[in-house]
């Protein structure tokens, strides 16, 4: 059924259709609307049977989900940014124990300086935590990916993180096609755990493992992730059969036929990129984009196939590997090993910095002429940066960087960032 609604509401309704049994919630922007909506559904009885638990921290949220999942309940939580880092120990633990928890990450920057706006630093900091990581391009996809996430995670006994851009998606009102309960029930079978805490058949979960078997346990986690590369396309096809639309999958090419320049990106920025590419294609430029939906496991073969014919690749990412350059681009480079092509890393949109069509157009035109630096920071204010560098050169006690820059900028709200 077509509805106009906020992204968070759409995700909450989709999660409810998946019949979660335990939901734990701790507030952090920008995911709060999702758990607020779910909490209301549990409280008014429309989502039942389900336990909604207001916990005291994100660390507890994931720990409660670990316990609930190990006892055989379908478990869900949502977080972002500092919250994801605060629960990090339990994030690794959930995947290590093989518990198919589904978690929404409303992607947000990580401090300091504290910043509530969107980038991908949070989820990508957890890229090696053993979770399957899916990135939604729009609210319809965010909704659909949650339904697929429960199916995928429970089949593989692995937790799944569905990432959606904070505010840009979570707080945007868009038209979505909300499935019916019957459709979701037809697609998503009941959760049959591989291991469960049951007095009838007692097991010890989470025993200590030394050097004699630890490598094997870790290898099996890797092997299970790699299985997702086969399962995800199959589940996406099945999803299309039940729900009548394409959603999910590994990665998606857009106008890459005969493209000499291919942009690679994840999340909501793909929409803006596609608009710019349409514009450039009309002007005769041979440019396309490869959107990555699945970040972990990384679809190495799919990405390689998608980029094979290009002369150059521009990876535009809302994250940064400090001291190296890009995170996504490092992963893309792995997919391109042995191939000779120009590769550019573009760090963009950190902490909610708007990525405009104008900036992208300028960037892509420069890339086509191979005039880009290998690591480029899109729309970086060099005046501000240089002023601070001079200040640091002049005074040992130059003061806190963030405060200095804010003073230089003046009234932030008046500026169009």
């Amino acid at each position, binding site marked *: 059924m077509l509805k106009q609604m906020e992204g968070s509401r759409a995700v909450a309704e989709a999660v409810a259709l998946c019949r979660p*049994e335990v939901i734990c919630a701790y507030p952090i922007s920008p995911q709060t609307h999702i758990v607020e909506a779910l909490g209301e559904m549990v409280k008014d009885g429309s989502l039942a049977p389900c336990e909604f638990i207001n916990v005291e*921290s994100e660390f507890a949220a994931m720990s409660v989900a670990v316990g609930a999942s190990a*006892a055989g309940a379908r*478990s869900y939580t949502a977080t972002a940014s500092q919250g994801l880092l605060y629960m990090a120990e*339990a994030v690794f633990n959930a995947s290590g124990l093989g518990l198919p928890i589904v978690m929404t990450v409303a992607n947000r920057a990580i401090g300091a300086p504290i910043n509530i706006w969107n980038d991908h630093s949070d989820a990508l900091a957890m890229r090696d935590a053993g979770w399957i990581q899916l990135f939604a391009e729009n609210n319809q996809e965010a909704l659909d990916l949650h339904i697929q996430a429960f199916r995928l995670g429970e089949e593989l006994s692995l937790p799944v993180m569905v990432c959606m851009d904070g505010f840009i998606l979570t707080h945007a009102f868009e038209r979505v096609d909300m499935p019916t309960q019957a459709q979701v029930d037809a697609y998503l079978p009941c959760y049959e755990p591989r291991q469960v805490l049951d007095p009838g058949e007692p*097991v010890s979960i*989470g025993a200590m493992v030394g050097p004699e078997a630890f490598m094997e346990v870790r290898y099996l986690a890797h092997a299970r992730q790699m299985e997702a590369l086969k399962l995800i396309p199959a589940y996406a096809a099945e999803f299309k059969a039940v729900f009548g639309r394409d959603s999910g999958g590994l990665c998606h090419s857009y106008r890459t036929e005969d493209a000499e320049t291919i942009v690679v990106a994840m999340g909501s920025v793909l929409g803006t990129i596609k608009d710019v590419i349409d514009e450039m294609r009309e002007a005769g430029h041979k440019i396309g984009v490869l959107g990555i939906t699945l970040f972990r496991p990384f679809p190495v073969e799919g990405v390689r196939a998608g980029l094979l014919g290009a002369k150059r690749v521009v990876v535009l990412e809302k994250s940064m590997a400090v001291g190296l350059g890009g995170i996504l681009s490092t992963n893309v480079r792995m997919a391109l090993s042995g191939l000779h092509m120009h590769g550019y890393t573009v760090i963009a949109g950190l902490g909610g910095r708007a990525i405009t069509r104008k900036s992208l157009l300028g960037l892509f035109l420069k890339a086509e002429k191979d005039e880009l630096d290998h690591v480029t920071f899109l729309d970086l204010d060099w005046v501000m940066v240089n002023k601070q560098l001079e200040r640091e050169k002049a005074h040992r006690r130059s003061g806190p960087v963030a405060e200095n820059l804010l003073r230089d900028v003046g009234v932030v709200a008046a500026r169009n960032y």
Partner: protein
Amino acid sequence: MSFQPIKFYQTGTFTVGNRLLPPEQRSVQASGKRFNSINSGHRACQGCGEALGARYAIDAAMEATDGRLVAANATGCLEVFSTPYPETSWQIPWIHSLFGNAAAVATGIAAALKVKGQAQTRVVAQGGDGGTTDIGFGCLSGMFERNDDVLYICYDNGGYMNTGVQRSSATPPAARTATTPAVGAAPGNVFGQGKFVPAIALAHDIPYVATATVADLRDLEAKVRRAMEIRGARYIHILVPCPLGWGTQSNETIKMARLAKETGIFPVFEAEHGEIKAVLPIRHQLPVEEYLKPQKRYAHLFGKQPQVEVIARLQALADRNIKRYGLLGQG
């Protein structure tokens, strides 16, 4: 063999043979049908108070729930000595997740059981004093204030024994640990620090809080049994001497626990909804020296120049407990 009532004389201690008691008062451990929830063959040290306490507590909980029990365990000695790969001592469904989240994991298990209509299966969380009073304290307090249906058992041996005897917030003043060494002007752990989590549990107004020691195992069993009759958040804090960390002989564990109770160092009580309902009174009050002297962690107090002032401060702490909890039966 049928039960025959036998008259007996008390000897001035609680050492009453099981066969002299009516069946309902007999120790769970005295039964041939005991659950052996923690089976033999684990790797605990000889004389481990925690292994003893856990065995009695969990078997009593198993009896009270007719074998329908799930346990969540914090990282620590109990976890490490009971589950060395590929073996496990646990005969019950058991999960270890992390050091600081046993209470939250237990909350999740209880929620799952409730939603699945299996609320007759009960949940126990357990950890040492480090996993309870320090790193797990946030999750513990959260579980308490939500009144989640979990019995949390803390096995308090006064330090991080698993990592080599470091100070925790349950380490008593003056005690020597690897991070409060017996050197300098004020050797051992600092006075005026630390916390007594049973009192903090009381402040949460949860349905049931109790303390116990491994010197009074029947009392421990009775408290676990009582706790399992109640729904909601429950807390039992058990003093479990550690021969390694305390520097005592492995055959002195029960004696040390008894001395802690008889000196007033460790108050043994039972409370419901924030109000103390009963204490286990001191039977033969002893000065704290009796408790301190056998322990190497206090050896620096009894050298050539006994630290009379420090011992007096420890006596004052015991006296305060005696007064605060009415341990001489003066109520």
